[in-house]
């Protein structure tokens, strides 16, 4: 068993590929530098992230794969909760480079199929952020939204929000991963809230911290949400399926 250790970044993963080809040794296991090695193994290589090497691997992949497939690779990197994720990405890229023609549509290949599954989940989660983000207008006229996405997908949603809400200041915050994006009417920047006492970190604003008309529109929205349902057709199962309970925490209409 061959082990590569690396820094758990996407750049590091691409460097692993580069070094594997350079040394003609391919890993069976990828693991973070800091984690413990197993009892038995045939060789361990510690890989040092290198932007130039990573760049060259990515360029090589660009020749082999469509832009969609490349997005699939980089977006799947943001998936959480798949211990096999890194090795899977490695294998797919390895196969892509070796294969004479593109492998991206070969869903008969278990790795390609698995990757497409993971990518699908990431896309779903991105969509859910876009669907379920609820902005609350704060006293300083910033539209604030808290979210707890399952995968680390906020970066994938920023283009959408920037395009749609170009005329208002906004802040979207990942409460679990403790970072977010702030748009100040000109550009978007990544931020981390350091002031632990701020009402923002509660996720839902209180009366003091919200704009004057915010409560009114929240009320109107809740009224609308109730009124629009046809009572004869109440369907809690479908309701939960489409809008899973784990998102309710910051949904105004579910407060």
């Amino acid at each position, binding site marked *: 068993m061959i082990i590569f250790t690396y820094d758990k970044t996407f750049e590091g993963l691409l460097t692993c590929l580069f070094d594997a080809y350079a040394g003609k040794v391919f890993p069976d296991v990828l693991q973070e530098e800091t984690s413990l090695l197993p009892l038995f193994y045939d060789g361990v290589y510690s890989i040092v992230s290198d932007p130039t090497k990573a760049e060259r691997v990515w360029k090589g992949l660009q020749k082999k794969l469509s832009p969609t497939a490349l997005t699939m690779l980089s977006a799947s990197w943001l998936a959480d909760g798949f211990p096999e994720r890194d090795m899977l990405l490695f294998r797919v890229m390895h196969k892509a480079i070796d294969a004479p023609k593109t492998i991206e549509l070969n*869903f008969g290949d278990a790795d390609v199929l698995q990757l497409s599954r993971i990518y699908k989940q990431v896309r779903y989660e991105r969509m859910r952020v876009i669907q379920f983000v609820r902005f609350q207008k704060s006293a300083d006229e910033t539209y604030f939204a808290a979210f707890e996405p399952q995968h680390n997908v906020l970066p994938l949603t920023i283009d959408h929000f920037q395009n749609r809400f170009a005329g208002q200041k906004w802040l979207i915050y990942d409460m679990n991963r403790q970072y977010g994006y702030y748009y100040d009417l000109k550009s978007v920047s990544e931020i981390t809230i350091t002031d632990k006492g701020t009402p923002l970190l509660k996720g839902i604003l209180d009366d003091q911290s919200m704009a004057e008309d915010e409560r009114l529109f929240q009320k109107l929205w809740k009224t*609308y*949400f109730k009124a629009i349902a046809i009572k004869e057709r109440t369907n809690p199962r479908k309701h939960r399926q*489409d809008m899973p309970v784990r998102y309710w925490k910051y949904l105004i209409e579910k407060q």
Partner: protein
Amino acid sequence: MKILAESAKYDVSCSSSGTVRRNTNGGLGNTVGGIGICHSFAEDGRCISLLKIMLTNNCMYDCAYCINRRSNDIPRATLSVSELVTLTIEFYRRNYIEGLFLSSGVLRNPDYTMERLVKVAKDLRSQYFNGYIHLKSIPGASRELVTEAGLYADRLSVNIEIPNEQSLKLLAPEKSFDSIFQPMKFIHQGILENGEERKKFRGAPRFVPAGQSTQMIVGATPETDQDILYLSSALYKRPTMRRVYYSGYVAVNSYDTRLPALQQPPLVRENRLYQADWLMRFYQFKVEEIVNDAFPNLDLDVDPKLSWALRHPEFFPVDINRADYEMLLRVPGIGVKSAKLIVMSRQYGALTSFQLKKIGVVMKKAQYFITCRELPIMSIQELKPEIVKNLLLTPKHKKGIFNQPELPFDPI
């Protein structure tokens, strides 16, 4: 607001798809990639993507199937144009909605009402609102107003409601097929003319870029599914007609003896009609294959695609590794997506049932209708159609799926 949202909710159209509208510099909103985003889901399971509301639920007409008919003693309310504009913009800024779906009861006369609807859309656009706007055109509105509406709205709709002229006359004496099909024609012509114009001047404003839609009420009158689907199919012949919606009749005016006394809206039937509609639009079925004189009503027990397959065992089993795309689409358990995946994947080698499952084929259904490399055990040819039907029915009945059919949504 509560009154006007409650009055609007029986209108089923939740679709906000079909347009890409870019944000103008610093303005508010865009309409993305032709996919309507559901921002929330109501407790009846329906997608909320638009603020669906009425300008007023006052109405001078007396349509038997409508909660807002003038002879009903219900609370009435009217929103002003500016209230509607503010509400839409504020909801949009908070990411509650994709846009506005505005309809109205008839106030004074059709044009008077239509003018107000148009004003809302116009004011929204003049405040750089680029979200989605769907206006319901008032039956009998003049050509000028319909044309103006088309300049601001992404979609216009005129509801047919009752799929047969006599039945319509009986239930909605103030309306006629003419007052409905005329505006539809205006919209259609407007779109075509606009297309010509835009060929000449690329900057010409767009006219209802998301086309038009309509709705029919199901189960309030004696029409068969054949009547309904033939009308839909005729409507779809016009390329500007994007969607026909079917709405199971909810007995809101149970005192009216012209209407059937339904305990429950015919939800299963509504669902089957949507599935049939789907088959016409995405599965290349002709309407007469789905319903015809010998088979005027859809089978409520099984979906119309399975129903067709059971009536036509001679087409099966289909060889997954050879059959063309059109035939794959006809196999129960294979959807548009999996059919496409099959066609792409089989270039790399023959597909096995294991791979089919992974691709997303519902093997429980498909197994009786296909052969692949190792599978052909018992197909519909060896078993009889009745047996296959029974095999496919039993587990579903147990789960009680038929009590709670799910509402359809727009495919991507």
